[in-house]
């Protein structure tokens, strides 16, 4: 099974419980369709770089999961139907992305790129 990661942005109008409910709803949808959740990360309320649906902030949530390819279509349709989700992005992870996210999760580095690329050739 291919591994994917998806970032969703929820409207900032939701209460804590309502936001949690959305996340559990989609978590359940994933597991019910033969997907296996590898990792979840809540970024919390973040300011958007530009307004989306006239809102300047949004709740970010990142989910990494393994799923059969046909499920992705289904998942994205569900995302579109739910008006509490302002934006979503699903990306298939290749082997470099896998290595990167695993390393990041294990905390082997703190901001690796910052230290490695100090000198900016500009």
């Amino acid at each position: 099974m291919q591994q994917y990661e998806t970032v969703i942005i929820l409207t900032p109008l939701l209460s804590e419980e309502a936001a949690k409910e959305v996340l559990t709803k989609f978590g359940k949808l994933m597991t019910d369709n033969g997907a296996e959740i590898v990792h979840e990360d809540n970024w919390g309320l973040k300011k958007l770089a530009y307004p989306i649906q006239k809102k300047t902030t949004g709740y970010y949530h990142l989910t990494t999961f393994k799923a059969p390819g046909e499920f992705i279509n289904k998942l994205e349709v569900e995302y579109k139907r739910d008006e509490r989700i302002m934006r979503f992005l699903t990306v298939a992870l290749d082997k470099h992305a896998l290595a990167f996210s695993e390393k990041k999760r294990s905390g082997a580095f703190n901001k690796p790129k910052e230290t490695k690329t100090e000198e900016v050739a500009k």
Partner: protein
Amino acid sequence: MAKDTIQYVTAPKVDESRKKYCRFKKNGIKYIDYKDANFLLKFINDQGKVLPRRLTGTSLKFQRKVAQAVKRARHIGLLPYVTDSLK
């Protein structure tokens, strides 16, 4: 008469042009994370446009990946599509 001042026929090269290099190749970075907006800031100008390879020195292979990452970051609202005052 200033005899001790040296005069050149052609202006001497003050700053030997430093060779640009691809930082991803040099540092062995294989994956460019679209979720790290601060890192991607190095590859866009203050209007939010992707900088050309001739300025950053990035190799073609990684320039494509940078562009892809910037586009993804824009989609999820981490970077702006258009702006005037990014830096």
